[in-house]
């Protein structure tokens, strides 16, 4: 039997943000998950509030209070403004490695999407930060693509820029056989020069900006970006990503790295099937194919997401019930992020991430805020203030 302080179920943004914070408080922590969840598929940006009341939000921190008062059941309302701000600030400061997220917390960015539209978001990977509407308007843009790369549509992006925003945009498709984004990213990671040189074969004009597919390596993105800039004498950026997503892979690694450094064991392929809880602690049954194990912990955080989540059975003394019965049902917590289910509050089961989301989905903002908040509550529960 494994005996730890905190077990976290789910290894997306919410679970891993919580794991880092809890492990930094010197509590022994373990993460189990059936597989990588939705974070690894994410776009490379983190939203707080993009649209509200039918309108586009420019300053999400200013809109937050009104959002909370109109959506009292939303995870943002449970976490509260102050902690949300802390969560975003800490993320911006502490997650700085081979990639980092940038953005002014006061003001949304308006970034180029894979459909050639612009969308408001709060933080973006540094390689993407230049692709804003403000930058591109009035500039000459070249959208660079690869002939066989799936899920990247340079002609659509260029035409949409021209039609909708009168941005002078062209596109070019380099003749490559690679079809998958990760395949190209790995190739660029090791052989970027060869591919970039091939741009010389084309007689390209002068451009202010190069819009590149989000495949510029996994760890060397900044270098590859400047190699493109050097050869074409223009500023370059990656557009947001559709899945399968290289920026999502970078984020996953960015989130995992500090956990691993702090000694957090991340076990993939294990499914939590049952949590039994008493005031003393939780006994969680985990299974992998035919293997079974029991984990004893003082607290559990359920961060199993929304789209990919599975069923877990939870029971507390006289209460027995199955949680997450339906993908479309959301879990509820009290103000301290403790699970409320079947009319009961569970003292040592906490919930984080999009398992809590109401209908209005937020791109990772909920995960970040609730991951942070649940960790803070677990630490308070186990160590006091």
């Amino acid at each position, binding site marked *: 039997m494994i005996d730890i302080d905190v077990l976290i179920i789910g290894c997306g943004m919410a679970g891993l943000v919580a794991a880092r914070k809890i492990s930094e408080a010197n509590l022994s922590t373990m993460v189990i998950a059936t597989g990588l969840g939705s974070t690894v598929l*994410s776009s490379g940006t983190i939203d707080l509030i993009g649209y509200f009341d039918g309108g586009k939000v420019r300053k999400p921190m200013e809109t937050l209070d009104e959002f909370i008062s109109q959506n009292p059941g939303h995870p943002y309302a449970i976490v509260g403004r102050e902690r949300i701000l802390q969560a975003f600030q800490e993320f911006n400061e502490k997650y700085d490695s081979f990639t980092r997220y940038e953005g002014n917390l006061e003001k949304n960015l308006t970034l180029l*999407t*894979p*459909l050639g539209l612009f969308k408001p978001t709060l933080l973006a990977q540094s390689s993407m930060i230049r692709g804003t509407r403000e930058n591109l308007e009035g500039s000459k843009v070249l959208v660079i693509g690869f002939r*066989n790369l799936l899920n990247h549509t340079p002609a*659509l992006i260029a035409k949409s820029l021209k039609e*909708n925003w009168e941005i002078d945009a062209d596109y070019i498709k380099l003749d490559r056989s690679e079809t998958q984004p990760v395949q190209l990213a790995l190739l660029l990671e090791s052989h970027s020069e060869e591919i970039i040189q091939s741009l010389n074969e084309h007689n390209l004009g002068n451009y202010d900006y190069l819009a590149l597919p989000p495949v510029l390596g996994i760890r060397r993105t900044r270098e590859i970006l400047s190699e493109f800039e050097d050869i074409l004498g223009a500023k370059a950026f990656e557009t947001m990503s559709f899945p399968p997503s290289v920026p999502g892979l970078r984020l996953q690694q960015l989130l995992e790295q500090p956990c691993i450094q702090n000694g957090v064991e991340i076990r993939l392929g294990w499914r939590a099937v049952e949590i039994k809880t008493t005031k003393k602690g939780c006994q969680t049954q985990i299974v992998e194919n035919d293997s079974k194990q029991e984990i004893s912990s003082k607290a559990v955080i359920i961060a199993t997401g929304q789209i990919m989540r599975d069923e877990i059975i939870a029971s507390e003394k006289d209460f027995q019930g199955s949680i997450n019965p339906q993908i479309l049902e959301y879990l509820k917590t009290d103000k301290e992020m403790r699970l409320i289910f079947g009319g009961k509050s569970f003292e040592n089961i906490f919930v984080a991430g999009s398992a809590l989301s109401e209908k209005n989905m937020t*791109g990772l903002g909920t995960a970040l805020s609730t991951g942070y908040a649940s960790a803070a509550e677990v630490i308070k529960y186990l160590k006091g203030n």
Partner: protein
Amino acid sequence: MSKFDVIIIGGGVVGSGVLRDLSLRGVHTLLVDRGDLASEATGKNHGLLHSGARYVVSDPESALECAEENIILKKIAKHTIEDTGGLFVATEERNLEYLDPFLKGCSKCKVENKEITVEEALEREPFLNPNIKAAVWVNDASIDPFLLVVSNVLSALRNGAEVLTYTSVKPIVENGAVLGVETFRNGKSEKHFSEIVVNATGAWAGKVAEQAGVKLEIRPNKGTLVVLNNRVTNHVINNLRPPSDGDIIVPHYSTMILGTTSTYVEKPDGILPEKEEIKKIVRECEKMLPIVADSRIIRAFCGARPLFGKGSGRVVTRGMLLVDHKVDGVEGFVTITGGKLTTYRLMAEKASDLVCEKLGVRAKCRTAEEPLPGSEGTPPSAEEIQNRFQVNTLTSNEIVNKYGTISSEMPQKPGLICECSLVSRAEIIHSFEKLLAKNLRDVKKRTRLGMGTCQGQFCIHRAAEVMVEDLNFSAKEALNSLAEFLDEQWKIAHILEGDQLRQLMFARVMFEIVGNIRHRSEKRD
């Protein structure tokens, strides 16, 4: 203003069948539909080419018609048909009572049949319920109704016909005669005149007749169908019992379609499948093929059968209704409705005979002998297609199977767009250029783009790129098309479960949260 001999309202299989029949007889004909071709009942059924066996006991007249048309269509429309054969299996002891009248009926109605042992049935279809009590082989087949319609229209176009899709229509009636139709498209109206207007609007026939000043009672009957992503049978599987809900499984490409239900509805517009109907169909079909219970439902849809006359949906004859509304005091107006996909050609022949008689045209019907475009001559080899389109062997085989000789008319544009249903770039371009597709939903019908497990999540984005890059659509048109495609998928979210629901939500996050498709009309502010 323009002038035709005949104007047909309705681009389903019957309307397009009449269009072809008349065009082959030299009659100058226009077909108008408010939407795309094959967008209602024609495309919303199980895609079964009946052997007739289903009706031999309850409706021998229909059974005989089906048996004859089955043989004709296997000749003239072979590229749209997968000649699977069918099995009728008795799942319960008490259904054995039905075996004898069934076999006798088959012989009487000239339905090719052979009783086989349960062992043989299981050998042919190992996923069949091992507890079945009896099995009869019949010559059912699966048919692609979209390609059937498109091929009829292609043939007509070659013979001088004209077609307007996405065009609303109203009969022009003066002094007790229908003189033509007024069409409405993109905010513009236009008048088209003809000697005769043919009402081939299926479950909407009563409504159109009313506009022409004629009372015609059509009872729309809703049938719901379920699509599974795994195909584990090569035969059509029928339950050997009197016709009832959930009695058939039809293999289609890489999917299986389970059907169906039968409920009268007030109006044929806006009907959606219900979870209860789906549960019932699955519960019934798993009696024949137990694996159905654990299979992934990727889609469900429903269509409105145009039934007429009294009685319940099951017992009333599905035979055709052909009316010269002269009997109602209206000249120049003919309705053809009812019937079945399998008997569309016969219905078209009867309607065209009537129209020609009224026009004084003597030319005879040629549709029973003349193959449809796609089934004329020898199709190109899969190797040839593979080289031209630079696609894998599976895809090139699929292209040749689907389009037959039409595949040699496709543009030489390389690449695979839809990985679930193996749809190439060339097919998408060809659909727009030659097969009257106006948007991605139309392309889906013609090519099967987005009909597989991911339901278009990845391929429609690529197809939007094809629209912009190869076909000169604007970005706005491509994105609108993409959004409409998604909206149609999301209409059935309420019936999905498990992995397919995850898939749908995943697509939603992708296009709405990341792509920002909902705010595509946002301009500078």
